[in-house]
């Protein structure tokens, strides 16, 4: 079997000095170890447990270019600002391919105690801070993480100071723009200090329809005692975009973490959500919405590990699959012997709207003590024919009725977004998505 890593290892062998040059010592520090890990392994493929429906090896096999020499690729930033969330003023930064670009408003309006900046710049200006946190949550032994670590030259660094609560969401726009195929190793590091609070919104866009893109993104999030972070992620990329996003979260006592991830437009996507609950009285919410038509492929995989007592986790992932789309969900909850009085719930509900769409679901519970309340469940079905007829009988054309039912199906995931302006925005995007009027390459009306 081919090993897609070969080309990356060769590339690194040839250009390691250039990679380092375009970055900072605190990030370069881990590359050697990453290289060693990758030399002795391969990327997961469909024969590996947990990757039955998505081969990372295949995803990384094509020869994408990597902008290791940090050549300036012109990106139409003005266009990305149209992706701004109306009625929701945010502190916005842009990741153009793999380069962090702050906006003027971001630079001017950052409140005291809040950092949103280039990871490389932070690694140069505050090396100790970065060295301590970078790579501390995402295990470098994981092949995806190792590959990302090998090539990540820049990224986003967000730090919310102790006791700081910011109302304004921080928004990062990931944007692909290149005339030739391109891979971006994106890295995100978020540290929420004690009792801090923040809303962080990511959205993924791809420009230049027809260009093939691959994003390798590793997100590390550390929540110290009492911190509360809501993390939103909306992918509106393109059919030619592949995305491998791995999130690793480390929760300390009484922290609360909520992730809300929506895949609206994409090519092939694999999202991994790994949460370690390392303190008591934490709450964790992982919510996901996947809407796929044509040949879109969406794979979400969660792994919530309760390592401390008296915490609660909730997971809800919903899919609507049409045409030839395929979806996969694998959800793991692990309750360790050290985590009595855990409450952990998971559910996955799917609608298959066509005869050719496919859904694969695998909910799993691993419980190693008796004092727990846990449940999991998965359902896959079709649109309710009776409801459809009722709506048609009132004059609503079938296509519109179907759209309304699909939208309605997603409502409980949308409602997990507590930020009202964002919830309205998401509802609107979903409506447009089902109307087939959500088209990102031009960012019209988005």
């Amino acid at each position, binding site marked *: 079997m081919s090993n897609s890593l070969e080309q990356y290892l060769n590339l690194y062998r040839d250009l390691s000095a250039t990679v380092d040059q375009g970055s900072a010592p605190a990030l370069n520090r881990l590359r050697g170890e990453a290289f060693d890990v990758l030399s002795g392994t391969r990327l997961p493929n469909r024969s590996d447990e947990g990757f039955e429906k998505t081969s990372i090896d295949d995803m990384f096999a094509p020869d994408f270019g990597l902008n290791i020499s940090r050549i300036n690729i012109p990106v139409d930033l003005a266009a990305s600002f149209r992706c701004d969330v109306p009625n929701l003023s945010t502190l916005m930064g842009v990741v153009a391919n793999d380069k962090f670009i702050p906006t003027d408003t971001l630079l001017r309006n950052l409140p005291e105690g809040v950092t949103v900046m280039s990871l490389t710049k932070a690694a140069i200006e505050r090396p100790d801070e970065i060295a301590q946190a970078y790579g501390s949550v995402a295990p470098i032994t994981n092949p995806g993480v190792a590959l990302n670590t090998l090539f990540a030259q820049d990224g986003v660094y967000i730090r919310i100071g102790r006791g700081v609560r910011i109302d304004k969401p921080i928004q990062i726009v990931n944007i692909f723009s290149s005339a030739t195929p391109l891979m971006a190793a994106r890295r995100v590091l978020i540290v929420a200090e004690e009792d801090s609070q923040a809303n962080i919104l990511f959205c993924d866009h791809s420009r230049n329809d027809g260009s093939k893109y691959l994003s390798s993104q590793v997100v590390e999030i550390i929540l110290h005692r009492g911190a509360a972070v809501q993390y939103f992620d909306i992918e509106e990329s393109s059919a030619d975009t592949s995305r491998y996003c791995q999130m690793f979260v480390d929760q300390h006592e009484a922290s609360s973490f909520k992730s809300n991830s929506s895949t609206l437009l994409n090519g092939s996507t694999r999202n991994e959500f790994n949460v370690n609950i390392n303190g008591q009285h934490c709450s964790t919410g992982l919510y996901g919405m996947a809407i796929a038509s044509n040949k879109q492929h969406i794979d979400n995989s969660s792994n919530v590990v309760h390592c401390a007592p008296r915490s609660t986790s909730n997971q809800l992932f919903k899919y609507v699959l049409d045409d030839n789309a395929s979806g996969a969900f694998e959800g793991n909850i692990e309750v360790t012997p050290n985590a009595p009085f855990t409450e952990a719930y998971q559910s996955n509900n799917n609608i298959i709207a066509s005869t050719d769409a496919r859904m694969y679901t695998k909910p799993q519970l691993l419980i190693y003590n008796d004092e727990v309340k846990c449940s999991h469940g998965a359902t896959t079905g079709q649109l309710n*024919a009776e409801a459809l*007829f009722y709506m*048609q*009988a009132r*004059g*609503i054309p*079938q296509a*519109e009725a179907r759209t309304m039912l699909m939208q309605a*199906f*997603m409502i409980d995931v949308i409602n997990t977004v507590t930020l009202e302006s964002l919830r309205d925005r998401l509802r609107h995007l979903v409506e447009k998505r089902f109307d087939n009027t959500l088209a990102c390459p031009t960012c019209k009306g988005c």
Partner: protein
Amino acid sequence: MKDILLKVENLHASIGDKEILKGINLEVRRGEVHAIMGPNGSGKSTLSSVLAGNPAFTVTEGSATFHGLNLLDLAPENRSHEGLFLSFQYPIEIPGVSMVNFMRAAVNAKRKYFNEPAMSATDFLKMMRQKRAVVELDNKLASRSVNEGFSGGEKKRNEIFQMAVLEPQLSILDETDSGLDIDALRIVSSGVNKLKTEENATIVITHYQRLLDYIKPDFVHVLYKGRIVKTGGPELALELEEKGYDWIKEEIDNKF
């Protein structure tokens, strides 16, 4: 005599391999009220579903003409636009679809069908308010998901509210009285009467004479085993109330 609004001839319909309607004949003119009665399971709801276009049933024989149109050729939504309304015996709950969005979609789809522009938000809300008054439907219900958590009676009221909004030419009310308390029965039937004109018509499916005290039928039909086996005036309903269906069943079962 007024024009014929609906003409059903020798209508047969099945679900799966099971034939339920076995040759229905029915003629409804504008301005008329027809009552359809009959024992449980005789095919009353099936007839209304088939006329409204429920794809669960297959028409195997016969025809239905609705003011000159071949009704059976039309998609359910177009039957609605053309003026057919079915008040469901069991209205469907649709979690996540708000009453307001549901009605707006219905109203604007009909306007689009007749090449009219969508209704403005103000006009729409004003109309909703007026129509709610027809059946004294609580404003609170209008802000919920379609029928979700509505009581049995509230669902029936909601059906007539929708009828008021859509202003159909032919309304089929399938057991609209079941589940209604005495006050609600009066309110709902007076709502139906308010919507009654010389130009439209109503088919009332019911088990009880008491509804017919409010909504006075011109004709009463008895549906049994998929056929209309008896037709009479309002007095037939009184007779059925008194004697039950056994005498008709006997008559028919001996014949076939």
